[in-house]
């Protein structure tokens, strides 16, 4: 993939040393395929994308995760060149592309509904981009057949688009872009239209394709499981801003904001007030009357009386029958099983506590006699380290 633009890489890097210098080591090739610097986009009074900066190292799988309307599609369209940023700079392989029209950027895009051309067959769809670049006929045939081979669909060249299955269409849409050796491949929720089983399979397949082509993938999604499973790094976006950029593990275990904690993965969420601060823990009294030990999330300085939100993931809460369990050092709470949410390995139990709050906890249901049953008295316990609290955000809706 590197042969697509060898010259510009070297030239571009040397022309922007000051911007990149401080954070990264002064290595000769800070290999970033895509960099966005303070990119903003306003539609009238609405700021769809607000001061977003990030860089993506070559060959990595980067996801932008956010709820619908958070500006992630606008950001992607700016990278592809369909929208002009109101301010900021976008660089591909070190070269600013803000003034480059979309058809001259070496950034290819897999659209949400794939946008395969229905009036052309598979071969013509893939050959379209090569033909636009003026590649010789024999070369086109070789490249198309090669890419079809790589996506494991060598026999579909002469098929019409409507004869393909959902997963095949998906792969053709990716092949159509990859045959052009893009610097960056943008994917705009391409799995949205598939059914669940196929979606799960395609997640793995996308990751494998990314490894195989070794191209930088930028994946836009509102589905956190897609982002977590496939990505090397994920950016969580909300209201046009990046809330956090990190590996899936970082996002999940060390969320930087209440929004990230709530959006990535499931969590029990309580709002309350800090009763006392005793490093490293803080005692929080929730509105529902629950009292729990928590740890302030990274970079949060809390004082007694602050309004906070507490997040505890269900898998960190242990639910055990009340009999024979002694009070542990951490947080512990008595309640009765309200209902079981059976979902195979991801089964949950909903526990109603004495103060009427419902708490979700992961349980293992084996189908044997030891399983919890609705109505049973249980004790919930969790370590204070697993309860993250964040200063409540008053202004943001």
């Amino acid at each position, binding site marked *: 993939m590197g042969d697509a633009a060898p010259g510009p890489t070297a030239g571009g890097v040397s022309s922007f040393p000051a911007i990149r210098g401080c954070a990264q080591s002064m290595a000769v090739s800070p290999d970033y395929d895509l960099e966005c610097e303070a990119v903003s986009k306003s539609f009238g009074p609405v700021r769809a994308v607000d001061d977003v900066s990030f860089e993506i190292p070559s060959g990595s799988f980067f996801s932008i995760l956010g709820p619908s309307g958070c500006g992630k599609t606008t950001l992607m369209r700016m990278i592809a060149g*369909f929208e002009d940023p109101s301010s900021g700079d976008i660089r591909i392989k070190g070269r600013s592309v803000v003034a480059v029209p979309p*058809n001259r950027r070496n950034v290819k895009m897999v659209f949400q509904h794939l946008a395969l051309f229905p009036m052309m067959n598979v071969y013509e769809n893939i050959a*379209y981009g090569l033909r636009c670049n003026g590649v010789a006929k024999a070369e086109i045939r070789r490249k198309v057949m090669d890419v079809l081979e790589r996506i494991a669909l060598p026999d579909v060249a002469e098929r019409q688009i409507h004869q393909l299955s959902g997963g095949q269409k998906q792969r053709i849409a990716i092949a159509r872009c990859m045959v052009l050796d893009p610097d960056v491949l943008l994917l705009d929720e391409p799995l949205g239209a598939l059914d669940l089983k196929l979606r799960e399979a395609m997640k793995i397949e996308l990751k494998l394709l990314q490894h195989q082509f070794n191209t930088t993938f930028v994946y836009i999604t509102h589905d956190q499981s897609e982002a977590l499973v496939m990505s090397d790094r994920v950016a969580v976006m909300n209201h046009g801003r990046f809330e956090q950029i990190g590996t899936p593990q970082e996002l999940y275990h060390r969320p930087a904001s209440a929004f990230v904690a709530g959006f990535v993965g499931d969590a029990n969420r309580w709002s309350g007030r800090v009763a006392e601060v005793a490093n490293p823990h803080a005692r929080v009294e929730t509105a529902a009357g629950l009292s729990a030990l928590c740890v302030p999330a990274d970079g949060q300085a809390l004082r007694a009386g602050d309004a906070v939100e507490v997040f505890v993931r269900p898998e960190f809460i242990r639910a055990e029958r009340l009999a024979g369990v002694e009070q542990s050092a951490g947080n512990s709470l008595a309640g009765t099983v309200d209902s079981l949410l059976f979902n195979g390995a991801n089964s949950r139990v909903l526990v109603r506590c004495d103060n009427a709050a419902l708490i979700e906890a992961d349980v293992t249901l084996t189908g044997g006699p030891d399983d919890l049953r609705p109505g049973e008295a249980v004790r919930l316990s969790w370590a204070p380290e697993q309860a993250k609290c964040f200063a409540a955000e008053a202004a943001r809706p």
Partner: protein
Amino acid sequence: MRQSDFRRLSLILLFAPFALWILLLIVLPHIGMGVLALREKVGPRVYEFGFGNFLEFAHEPIYWNTLIRTGTMSLLVTALALLIGFPIAYYIAKVAGRRARGALFLICLIPLWVSDLIRAFGWILLLRETGVISSALQAMGLVDGPIELLYNDATVIIGLVYTVILFMIVPLVSTLDGMDNAMIEAGYNLGGTGFTVLRRIIVPYAMPGIVAGCIIVFMLTAGSYLTPILLGGKYSSWFTETIYQQFITRYNWEGGAAFGFLLLAFTSAVVWIGLKLSGQTLAGTVAKS
């Protein structure tokens, strides 16, 4: 059982007006005309079965010249309507905002609110020797004397394009409207220039609408009577005028009927060739647009 009877009855009732219309106003008159066309006049009030009326057409160059001329000019009008209508339709369907779209469509419809005749007289008011344009040019000192802009082929073509262009725009808008914008963007994203995207993506996608629009416009133009006569005068040599002359002036209904069938056969043949050349089917274009 009663439910299915009811459904059958409602189907019949819904279908009846259409069937009556086809039968009474299309099929029966054409059978009548067919019979008429195949009657040869051998003497006063004496008729024989034969193809004499059609042979008369073949023997008289002025007739088939007129037919060819009507066909070529209709094709020219169709091409012009497509060239002018396509950008308009593209603008309405893809560029204009949701609210502007309705207003623009309405503006396109406005000419239809006025009768054909009045519209033709409007053109006459503008273009005749003492008309608006001629007077304006004289007032500006650009021409010395009054100029006659009516009664030439260019005027007839302009008038016809003006009359029929809406029927080109409507099917084009509806096909282009169904096109996902992402497809155009994908065309650019994969490296296509504006021209490539138009030629390889937009036009092929809009083909059913283009063909449907062209068929409608060609049929309307070739069968039009008022506009060529009023704007082209007696030299317009439109085939419908020849048919009119057979029926009314010469009171030769047999000849007129035969010519009518010839016009129908001719336009059908042109449409058939057009469909073959564009690789479309009649059902495909009509269903899609």
